[in-house]
Protein backbone atom coordinates (compact mmCIF):
# COMPACT_ATOMS: atom_id res chain seq x y z
CA UNK A 1 0.00 0.00 0.00
CA UNK A 2 1.16 3.51 -0.74
CA UNK A 3 1.85 5.56 2.36
CA UNK A 4 0.98 8.82 0.58
CA UNK A 5 -2.49 9.16 2.09
CA UNK A 6 -1.59 7.98 5.56
CA UNK A 7 -1.33 10.12 8.65
CA UNK A 8 1.00 9.32 11.54
CA UNK A 9 0.89 9.87 15.29
CA UNK A 10 3.91 10.87 17.34
CA UNK A 11 3.48 7.51 19.09
CA UNK A 12 4.11 5.68 15.76
CA UNK A 13 0.59 4.60 14.78
CA UNK A 14 -0.54 5.15 11.18
CA UNK A 15 -4.07 6.17 10.20
CA UNK A 16 -5.97 5.96 6.93
CA UNK A 17 -9.24 7.93 6.95
CA UNK A 18 -12.04 6.95 4.59
CA UNK A 19 -15.63 8.18 4.27
CA UNK A 20 -18.40 5.58 4.43
CA UNK A 21 -22.13 6.49 4.53
CA UNK A 22 -21.26 9.95 5.77
CA UNK A 23 -19.11 8.59 8.62
CA UNK A 24 -15.35 8.87 8.89
CA UNK A 25 -13.68 5.50 9.42
CA UNK A 26 -10.04 5.36 10.52
CA UNK A 27 -8.00 2.24 9.78
CA UNK A 28 -5.12 2.12 12.27
CA UNK A 29 -1.82 0.24 12.37
CA UNK A 30 1.76 0.56 13.60
CA UNK A 31 4.43 2.20 11.42
CA UNK A 32 7.20 0.21 9.76
CA UNK A 33 9.70 2.31 11.67
CA UNK A 34 8.17 1.18 15.00
CA UNK A 35 7.91 -2.44 13.86
CA UNK A 36 11.62 -2.48 12.96
CA UNK A 37 12.54 -0.86 16.28
CA UNK A 38 10.46 -3.41 18.24
CA UNK A 39 12.04 -6.19 16.18
CA UNK A 40 11.21 -9.62 17.64
CA UNK A 41 7.42 -9.43 18.06
CA UNK A 42 5.78 -12.03 20.27
CA UNK A 43 2.32 -10.80 21.29
CA UNK A 44 -0.39 -8.38 20.22
CA UNK A 45 -3.46 -7.47 22.25
CA UNK A 46 -6.19 -6.09 19.99
CA UNK A 47 -8.84 -3.63 21.15
CA UNK A 48 -12.32 -5.04 21.72
CA UNK A 49 -14.93 -4.40 19.07
CA UNK A 50 -17.51 -1.90 20.31
CA UNK A 51 -15.09 -0.22 22.70
CA UNK A 52 -15.06 3.59 22.83
CA UNK A 53 -11.48 4.80 22.50
CA UNK A 54 -10.00 8.23 23.08
CA UNK A 55 -7.23 9.79 21.04
CA UNK A 56 -3.91 9.58 22.87
CA UNK A 57 -5.01 6.77 25.21
CA UNK A 58 -3.79 3.18 25.10
CA UNK A 59 -6.14 0.83 23.25
CA UNK A 60 -3.88 -2.16 22.63
CA UNK A 61 -0.50 -3.62 23.55
CA UNK A 62 2.35 -5.11 21.57
CA UNK A 63 5.18 -7.17 23.05
CA UNK A 64 8.61 -7.86 21.68
CA UNK A 65 11.10 -10.21 23.33
CA UNK A 66 12.62 -7.17 24.99
CA UNK A 67 9.64 -5.07 26.12
CA UNK A 68 5.93 -4.35 26.11
CA UNK A 69 4.59 -1.21 24.43
CA UNK A 70 1.18 0.46 24.42
CA UNK A 71 -0.62 1.10 21.17
CA UNK A 72 -2.33 4.47 21.40
CA UNK A 73 -5.60 5.35 19.71
CA UNK A 74 -4.79 8.11 17.21
CA UNK A 75 -8.44 9.15 16.98
CA UNK A 76 -11.54 9.21 19.20
CA UNK A 77 -14.43 6.93 18.37
CA UNK A 78 -15.81 3.39 18.47
CA UNK A 79 -13.87 0.26 17.46
CA UNK A 80 -15.83 -1.25 14.54
CA UNK A 81 -13.50 -4.10 13.69
CA UNK A 82 -10.22 -5.68 14.91
CA UNK A 83 -7.77 -7.65 12.76
CA UNK A 84 -8.12 -11.00 14.53
CA UNK A 85 -5.77 -12.73 12.07
CA UNK A 86 -2.88 -10.49 13.04
CA UNK A 87 -1.85 -11.82 16.51
CA UNK A 88 -1.02 -15.18 14.94
CA UNK A 89 0.96 -13.62 12.09
CA UNK A 90 3.08 -11.01 13.79
CA UNK A 91 6.10 -11.69 11.58
CA UNK A 92 4.05 -10.51 8.60
CA UNK A 93 4.11 -6.99 10.10
CA UNK A 94 7.74 -6.66 9.04
CA UNK A 95 6.75 -6.91 5.36
CA UNK A 96 3.23 -5.65 5.47
CA UNK A 97 2.78 -2.99 8.15
CA UNK A 98 0.51 -0.77 6.02
CA UNK A 99 -1.86 -3.26 4.45
CA UNK A 100 -2.63 -6.61 6.07
CA UNK A 101 -0.92 -5.18 9.16
CA UNK A 102 -3.89 -3.03 10.14
CA UNK A 103 -4.94 -3.42 13.77
CA UNK A 104 -8.39 -1.87 14.06
CA UNK A 105 -11.00 0.22 12.28
CA UNK A 106 -12.44 3.06 14.32
CA UNK A 107 -15.60 5.06 13.56
CA UNK A 108 -14.49 8.58 14.34
CA UNK A 109 -16.85 10.48 16.66
CA UNK A 110 -14.73 13.58 17.05
CA UNK A 111 -12.25 14.41 14.30
CA UNK A 112 -10.36 17.15 16.16
CA UNK A 113 -7.46 14.76 16.91
CA UNK A 114 -6.79 14.37 13.17
CA UNK A 115 -5.13 17.78 13.11
CA UNK A 116 -2.46 16.48 15.53
CA UNK A 117 -1.36 13.79 13.06
CA UNK A 118 1.54 14.17 10.62
CA UNK A 119 1.97 13.33 6.97
CA UNK A 120 4.62 10.78 5.99
CA UNK A 121 7.32 13.39 5.34
CA UNK A 122 6.87 15.03 8.73
CA UNK A 123 6.77 11.63 10.44
CA UNK A 124 9.95 10.46 8.70
CA UNK A 125 11.66 13.65 9.80
CA UNK A 126 10.60 13.04 13.41
CA UNK A 127 11.94 9.47 13.30
CA UNK A 128 15.23 10.68 11.88
CA UNK A 129 15.57 13.22 14.68
CA UNK A 130 14.74 10.59 17.29
CA UNK A 131 17.56 8.51 15.83
Amino acid at each position, binding site marked *: MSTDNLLFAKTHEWVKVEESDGAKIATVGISSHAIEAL*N*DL*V*YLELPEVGKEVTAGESFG*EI*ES*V*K*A*VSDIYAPVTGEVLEANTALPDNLDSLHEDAYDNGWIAKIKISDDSALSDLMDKAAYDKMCEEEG
Partner: protein
Amino acid sequence: MTTETLKKTPLYNWHAANGGRMVDFTGWSMPVQYTSIIDEHNATRNAVGLFDVSHMARFRFDGANALEFIDGLVTRKVADLKPGRIRYGLVCKEDGGILDDILTYHLQDGDGKSYTWMVVNAGNREKIAAWINARLPDDVKFTDCTEQTAMIAVQGPRAMAISQNLVEGDIAELKYYQGREATILSHPGLVSRTGYTGEDGVELTVPAENAIAVWEALHVAAAEVGGHAVGLGARDTLRLEAAMPLYGHELSEEITPLQAGLGFAMSWDHEFIGKAALEAIDKDSLPVRVGLAMQDRRVPREHYPLYSGDEQIGEVTSGSQSPTLAAPIAIGYVSRQYAAEGTMIDVDVRGKRHAAKVVPLPFYKRK
Protein backbone atom coordinates in the same frame (compact mmCIF):
# COMPACT_ATOMS: atom_id res chain seq x y z
CA MET B 1 24.12 9.81 31.45
CA THR B 2 25.15 11.07 28.01
CA THR B 3 26.86 8.87 25.45
CA GLU B 4 30.09 10.86 25.81
CA THR B 5 30.54 9.72 29.39
CA LEU B 6 29.82 6.04 28.73
CA LYS B 7 32.78 3.69 28.92
CA LYS B 8 33.67 1.77 25.78
CA THR B 9 35.16 -1.68 25.46
CA PRO B 10 38.09 -2.29 23.07
CA LEU B 11 35.49 -3.76 20.66
CA TYR B 12 33.22 -0.70 20.65
CA ASN B 13 34.20 0.43 17.15
CA TRP B 14 33.52 -3.04 15.76
CA HIS B 15 30.06 -3.15 17.34
CA ALA B 16 29.15 0.30 16.05
CA ALA B 17 30.41 -0.50 12.53
CA ASN B 18 28.61 -3.86 12.38
CA GLY B 19 25.04 -2.97 13.23
CA GLY B 20 25.25 -3.13 17.00
CA ARG B 21 22.39 -1.18 18.55
CA MET B 22 24.27 0.45 21.41
CA VAL B 23 22.71 1.09 24.80
CA ASP B 24 23.84 2.26 28.23
CA PHE B 25 24.48 -0.82 30.35
CA THR B 26 25.70 0.10 33.85
CA GLY B 27 27.74 2.97 32.44
CA TRP B 28 29.11 1.07 29.43
CA SER B 29 28.04 1.53 25.83
CA MET B 30 27.17 -2.05 24.84
CA PRO B 31 25.36 -3.69 21.92
CA VAL B 32 21.87 -4.90 22.86
CA GLN B 33 21.52 -6.64 19.49
CA TYR B 34 22.97 -6.68 15.99
CA THR B 35 20.18 -8.31 13.95
CA SER B 36 17.49 -9.87 16.12
CA ILE B 37 17.47 -11.21 19.67
CA ILE B 38 15.80 -14.41 18.50
CA ASP B 39 18.31 -14.96 15.66
CA GLU B 40 21.27 -14.34 17.96
CA HIS B 41 19.79 -16.59 20.64
CA ASN B 42 19.22 -19.44 18.19
CA ALA B 43 22.68 -19.03 16.66
CA THR B 44 24.15 -19.63 20.13
CA ARG B 45 21.98 -22.67 20.83
CA ASN B 46 22.54 -24.21 17.38
CA ALA B 47 26.07 -23.13 16.40
CA VAL B 48 28.04 -20.44 18.23
CA GLY B 49 27.58 -16.96 19.65
CA LEU B 50 30.30 -14.37 20.31
CA PHE B 51 29.83 -12.12 23.32
CA ASP B 52 31.86 -9.05 24.20
CA VAL B 53 32.01 -9.32 27.99
CA SER B 54 34.89 -6.87 28.36
CA HIS B 55 32.73 -4.62 30.52
CA MET B 56 32.88 -7.21 33.30
CA ALA B 57 35.54 -6.31 35.85
CA ARG B 58 38.77 -8.32 35.98
CA PHE B 59 40.86 -8.14 39.14
CA ARG B 60 44.28 -9.66 39.81
CA PHE B 61 45.74 -10.47 43.22
CA ASP B 62 49.41 -11.25 43.78
CA GLY B 63 51.00 -12.49 46.96
CA ALA B 64 51.24 -15.82 48.75
CA ASN B 65 48.16 -15.07 50.87
CA ALA B 66 45.89 -13.80 48.08
CA LEU B 67 43.62 -16.86 47.95
CA GLU B 68 43.29 -16.95 51.74
CA PHE B 69 42.30 -13.29 51.67
CA ILE B 70 39.62 -13.87 49.01
CA ASP B 71 38.46 -16.94 50.95
CA GLY B 72 37.29 -14.66 53.76
CA LEU B 73 35.27 -12.50 51.35
CA VAL B 74 33.30 -15.18 49.50
CA THR B 75 30.65 -17.70 50.56
CA ARG B 76 32.39 -20.52 48.73
CA LYS B 77 35.66 -21.89 50.01
CA VAL B 78 38.44 -20.94 47.59
CA ALA B 79 41.59 -21.30 49.75
CA ASP B 80 41.87 -24.90 48.54
CA LEU B 81 41.48 -24.06 44.82
CA LYS B 82 44.06 -26.00 42.85
CA PRO B 83 45.98 -24.17 40.12
CA GLY B 84 43.85 -24.00 36.98
CA ARG B 85 40.55 -24.16 38.85
CA ILE B 86 37.75 -21.59 38.94
CA ARG B 87 34.93 -21.33 41.47
CA TYR B 88 31.65 -19.38 41.53
CA GLY B 89 30.85 -17.64 44.80
CA LEU B 90 29.03 -14.74 46.41
CA VAL B 91 30.39 -11.70 48.18
CA CYS B 92 28.05 -10.86 51.06
CA LYS B 93 27.67 -7.96 53.48
CA GLU B 94 27.80 -8.61 57.23
CA ASP B 95 23.98 -8.96 57.21
CA GLY B 96 24.11 -11.66 54.51
CA GLY B 97 22.82 -9.49 51.63
CA ILE B 98 24.59 -10.19 48.33
CA LEU B 99 27.10 -7.57 47.11
CA ASP B 100 27.93 -9.53 43.96
CA ASP B 101 28.34 -12.95 42.43
CA ILE B 102 31.89 -13.51 41.23
CA LEU B 103 34.33 -16.03 39.81
CA THR B 104 37.64 -16.73 41.56
CA TYR B 105 40.46 -18.24 39.47
CA HIS B 106 43.68 -19.78 40.74
CA LEU B 107 46.14 -19.23 37.87
CA GLN B 108 49.85 -19.74 37.29
CA ASP B 109 52.19 -17.68 35.16
CA GLY B 110 54.85 -19.11 32.83
CA ASP B 111 57.26 -19.54 35.76
CA GLY B 112 54.71 -21.54 37.74
CA LYS B 113 54.06 -18.63 40.12
CA SER B 114 50.49 -18.57 41.45
CA TYR B 115 48.16 -15.58 41.31
CA THR B 116 44.46 -15.07 41.83
CA TRP B 117 42.08 -13.69 39.22
CA MET B 118 38.54 -12.52 39.82
CA VAL B 119 35.71 -11.66 37.45
CA VAL B 120 33.08 -9.29 38.85
CA ASN B 121 29.84 -7.89 37.40
CA ALA B 122 30.36 -4.64 35.45
CA GLY B 123 27.91 -2.66 37.57
CA ASN B 124 29.57 -3.77 40.82
CA ARG B 125 33.17 -3.03 39.87
CA GLU B 126 33.66 0.07 42.03
CA LYS B 127 31.69 -1.35 44.95
CA ILE B 128 33.68 -4.60 45.07
CA ALA B 129 37.02 -2.82 44.49
CA ALA B 130 36.24 -0.57 47.48
CA TRP B 131 35.16 -3.60 49.58
CA ILE B 132 38.46 -5.29 48.76
CA ASN B 133 40.64 -2.22 49.24
CA ALA B 134 39.14 -1.57 52.69
CA ARG B 135 40.27 -5.04 53.79
CA LEU B 136 43.39 -5.64 51.70
CA PRO B 137 46.31 -7.01 53.72
CA ASP B 138 49.77 -5.48 53.20
CA ASP B 139 51.14 -8.65 51.62
CA VAL B 140 48.50 -8.88 48.86
CA LYS B 141 48.74 -6.68 45.77
CA PHE B 142 45.43 -5.79 44.08
CA THR B 143 45.29 -4.68 40.41
CA ASP B 144 42.18 -3.78 38.41
CA CYS B 145 43.00 -5.13 34.92
CA THR B 146 39.59 -4.40 33.38
CA GLU B 147 40.58 -1.65 30.97
CA GLN B 148 43.91 -3.16 29.92
CA THR B 149 42.20 -6.34 28.75
CA ALA B 150 39.22 -7.55 26.75
CA MET B 151 37.14 -10.65 27.43
CA ILE B 152 35.27 -12.51 24.72
CA ALA B 153 32.87 -15.34 25.54
CA VAL B 154 32.41 -17.96 22.84
CA GLN B 155 29.34 -20.09 23.56
CA GLY B 156 27.49 -22.84 21.75
CA PRO B 157 28.03 -26.35 20.36
CA ARG B 158 30.67 -25.07 17.89
CA ALA B 159 32.43 -22.81 20.41
CA MET B 160 35.34 -25.12 21.22
CA ALA B 161 36.01 -25.92 17.57
CA ILE B 162 36.16 -22.32 16.37
CA SER B 163 38.21 -21.16 19.37
CA GLN B 164 40.82 -23.88 19.09
CA ASN B 165 42.37 -22.37 15.94
CA LEU B 166 43.33 -19.21 17.82
CA VAL B 167 44.74 -20.79 20.96
CA GLU B 168 48.01 -22.70 21.32
CA GLY B 169 47.60 -26.06 23.03
CA ASP B 170 44.55 -28.29 23.26
CA ILE B 171 41.70 -26.34 24.85
CA ALA B 172 39.49 -29.46 25.00
CA GLU B 173 41.76 -30.58 27.86
CA LEU B 174 40.26 -27.79 29.93
CA LYS B 175 37.32 -29.05 31.92
CA TYR B 176 34.31 -26.98 32.97
CA TYR B 177 35.39 -24.32 35.49
CA GLN B 178 39.07 -24.54 34.60
CA GLY B 179 41.32 -21.87 33.13
CA ARG B 180 44.94 -21.21 32.25
CA GLU B 181 47.28 -18.71 30.65
CA ALA B 182 47.44 -19.24 26.92
CA THR B 183 48.96 -17.87 23.75
CA ILE B 184 46.06 -16.49 21.73
CA LEU B 185 46.86 -15.34 18.18
CA SER B 186 50.56 -15.20 19.17
CA HIS B 187 49.91 -12.94 22.18
CA PRO B 188 49.62 -13.76 25.88
CA GLY B 189 46.14 -14.19 27.30
CA LEU B 190 43.85 -16.38 29.37
CA VAL B 191 41.50 -19.12 28.32
CA SER B 192 38.76 -20.31 30.67
CA ARG B 193 35.72 -22.51 30.44
CA THR B 194 32.77 -21.16 32.41
CA GLY B 195 29.86 -19.57 30.55
CA TYR B 196 26.51 -17.97 31.10
CA THR B 197 24.21 -19.36 28.42
CA GLY B 198 23.77 -23.02 29.31
CA GLU B 199 26.01 -24.00 26.39
CA ASP B 200 29.55 -25.29 26.23
CA GLY B 201 32.18 -22.66 25.55
CA VAL B 202 35.26 -20.70 26.47
CA GLU B 203 36.23 -17.18 27.41
CA LEU B 204 39.31 -15.63 25.83
CA THR B 205 40.88 -12.80 27.82
CA VAL B 206 43.40 -10.82 25.79
CA PRO B 207 45.30 -7.52 25.97
CA ALA B 208 42.99 -4.67 24.87
CA GLU B 209 45.10 -3.93 21.80
CA ASN B 210 44.59 -7.48 20.46
CA ALA B 211 40.85 -7.56 21.03
CA ILE B 212 39.73 -6.61 17.51
CA ALA B 213 42.07 -9.12 15.83
CA VAL B 214 40.88 -11.97 18.07
CA TRP B 215 37.22 -10.99 17.71
CA GLU B 216 37.46 -10.73 13.92
CA ALA B 217 39.17 -14.11 13.61
CA LEU B 218 36.43 -15.65 15.76
CA HIS B 219 33.77 -13.83 13.78
CA VAL B 220 34.98 -15.19 10.44
CA ALA B 221 35.13 -18.73 11.87
CA ALA B 222 31.70 -18.33 13.51
CA ALA B 223 30.07 -17.09 10.32
CA GLU B 224 31.25 -20.21 8.50
CA VAL B 225 29.26 -22.43 10.88
CA GLY B 226 26.17 -20.23 11.18
CA GLY B 227 27.34 -18.33 14.24
CA HIS B 228 26.86 -14.70 15.09
CA ALA B 229 27.90 -11.83 17.34
CA VAL B 230 25.39 -11.68 20.19
CA GLY B 231 24.21 -8.64 22.12
CA LEU B 232 22.90 -8.17 25.65
CA GLY B 233 19.32 -8.95 24.61
CA ALA B 234 20.00 -12.55 23.65
CA ARG B 235 22.54 -12.91 26.43
CA ASP B 236 19.63 -12.24 28.78
CA THR B 237 17.21 -14.72 27.14
CA LEU B 238 19.95 -17.39 27.04
CA ARG B 239 20.85 -17.04 30.69
CA LEU B 240 17.17 -16.87 31.66
CA GLU B 241 16.47 -20.20 29.94
CA ALA B 242 19.51 -21.63 31.75
CA ALA B 243 18.13 -20.06 35.00
CA MET B 244 21.40 -18.37 35.86
CA PRO B 245 20.80 -15.54 38.32
CA LEU B 246 21.56 -11.98 37.23
CA TYR B 247 22.79 -9.39 39.69
CA GLY B 248 20.27 -6.57 40.07
CA HIS B 249 17.45 -8.98 39.26
CA GLU B 250 17.65 -12.30 41.13
CA LEU B 251 20.53 -11.13 43.32
CA SER B 252 20.86 -7.91 45.31
CA GLU B 253 21.93 -6.53 48.66
CA GLU B 254 18.39 -7.23 49.89
CA ILE B 255 18.52 -10.91 48.89
CA THR B 256 20.52 -13.60 50.70
CA PRO B 257 22.08 -16.66 49.07
CA LEU B 258 19.72 -18.82 51.16
CA GLN B 259 16.70 -17.91 49.05
CA ALA B 260 18.40 -17.64 45.66
CA GLY B 261 18.78 -21.36 45.11
CA LEU B 262 22.55 -21.07 45.38
CA GLY B 263 23.22 -23.65 48.04
CA PHE B 264 26.02 -25.07 45.91
CA ALA B 265 27.85 -21.75 46.25
CA MET B 266 27.91 -21.93 50.06
CA SER B 267 30.71 -23.59 52.04
CA TRP B 268 29.81 -23.47 55.72
CA ASP B 269 33.15 -25.01 56.74
CA HIS B 270 35.09 -21.76 56.37
CA GLU B 271 34.80 -18.22 57.73
CA PHE B 272 33.45 -15.46 55.47
CA ILE B 273 31.80 -12.09 55.88
CA GLY B 274 28.07 -12.56 56.42
CA LYS B 275 28.33 -16.15 57.64
CA ALA B 276 27.09 -15.45 61.18
CA ALA B 277 24.06 -13.52 59.91
CA LEU B 278 23.21 -16.22 57.37
CA GLU B 279 23.45 -18.95 59.99
CA ALA B 280 21.04 -17.04 62.23
CA ILE B 281 18.32 -16.57 59.59
CA ASP B 282 15.25 -18.81 59.68
CA LYS B 283 15.44 -20.13 56.14
CA ASP B 284 11.77 -21.12 56.04
CA SER B 285 10.70 -17.49 56.48
CA LEU B 286 12.39 -16.38 53.24
CA PRO B 287 10.80 -16.20 49.79
CA VAL B 288 12.15 -18.74 47.31
CA ARG B 289 13.40 -18.37 43.75
CA VAL B 290 11.13 -20.28 41.36
CA GLY B 291 10.59 -20.81 37.64
CA LEU B 292 7.26 -19.82 36.10
CA ALA B 293 5.67 -21.01 32.86
CA MET B 294 2.86 -18.79 31.62
CA GLN B 295 -0.34 -20.56 30.61
CA ASP B 296 -1.05 -18.06 27.82
CA ARG B 297 1.05 -15.83 25.57
CA ARG B 298 1.52 -12.81 27.80
CA VAL B 299 5.16 -12.13 28.63
CA PRO B 300 5.97 -11.72 32.33
CA ARG B 301 8.47 -8.94 33.05
CA GLU B 302 10.61 -7.75 35.95
CA HIS B 303 8.61 -6.39 38.93
CA TYR B 304 5.25 -7.78 37.78
CA PRO B 305 3.47 -8.80 41.02
CA LEU B 306 2.63 -12.44 41.70
CA TYR B 307 -0.66 -13.40 43.36
CA SER B 308 -2.43 -16.35 44.89
CA GLY B 309 -6.06 -15.26 45.02
CA ASP B 310 -6.03 -11.72 46.39
CA GLU B 311 -2.77 -12.14 48.27
CA GLN B 312 0.44 -10.82 46.73
CA ILE B 313 2.98 -13.59 47.24
CA GLY B 314 6.00 -12.23 45.39
CA GLU B 315 7.22 -10.67 42.18
CA VAL B 316 8.91 -11.47 38.89
CA THR B 317 12.66 -10.74 38.80
CA SER B 318 13.31 -11.70 35.15
CA GLY B 319 10.91 -12.66 32.40
CA SER B 320 10.86 -12.94 28.66
CA GLN B 321 9.65 -14.86 25.70
CA SER B 322 11.85 -17.99 25.57
CA PRO B 323 13.09 -18.33 21.98
CA THR B 324 13.97 -22.01 22.50
CA LEU B 325 10.61 -22.96 24.03
CA ALA B 326 8.63 -20.39 22.01
CA ALA B 327 6.72 -19.60 25.18
CA PRO B 328 6.86 -16.91 27.88
CA ILE B 329 8.85 -17.79 31.02
CA ALA B 330 9.95 -16.04 34.18
CA ILE B 331 11.97 -16.31 37.35
CA GLY B 332 10.57 -14.76 40.51
CA TYR B 333 10.54 -14.97 44.27
CA VAL B 334 7.47 -16.32 46.06
CA SER B 335 6.59 -17.17 49.66
CA ARG B 336 7.76 -20.68 50.44
CA GLN B 337 4.28 -22.25 50.58
CA TYR B 338 3.73 -21.41 46.88
CA ALA B 339 7.12 -22.66 45.67
CA ALA B 340 6.24 -26.32 45.04
CA GLU B 341 6.38 -27.49 41.44
CA GLY B 342 2.96 -27.52 39.83
CA THR B 343 1.52 -24.74 42.01
CA MET B 344 -0.73 -22.44 40.01
CA ILE B 345 -0.37 -18.73 40.68
CA ASP B 346 -1.28 -15.49 38.89
CA VAL B 347 0.98 -12.90 37.29
CA ASP B 348 -0.37 -9.36 37.22
CA VAL B 349 0.38 -8.20 33.68
CA ARG B 350 -0.35 -4.47 33.63
CA GLY B 351 -3.47 -4.79 35.74
CA LYS B 352 -4.78 -8.12 34.42
CA ARG B 353 -4.24 -11.54 35.99
CA HIS B 354 -2.66 -14.28 33.89
CA ALA B 355 -2.16 -17.85 35.10
CA ALA B 356 1.35 -19.27 35.56
CA LYS B 357 2.62 -22.59 36.84
CA VAL B 358 5.64 -23.14 39.08
CA VAL B 359 8.06 -25.29 37.06
CA PRO B 360 11.53 -26.74 37.73
CA LEU B 361 14.65 -24.75 36.85
CA PRO B 362 16.44 -24.53 34.50
CA PHE B 363 13.98 -24.08 31.66
CA TYR B 364 16.62 -25.31 29.23
CA LYS B 365 19.39 -27.85 29.66
CA ARG B 366 21.67 -28.83 26.80
CA LYS B 367 21.70 -32.48 25.85
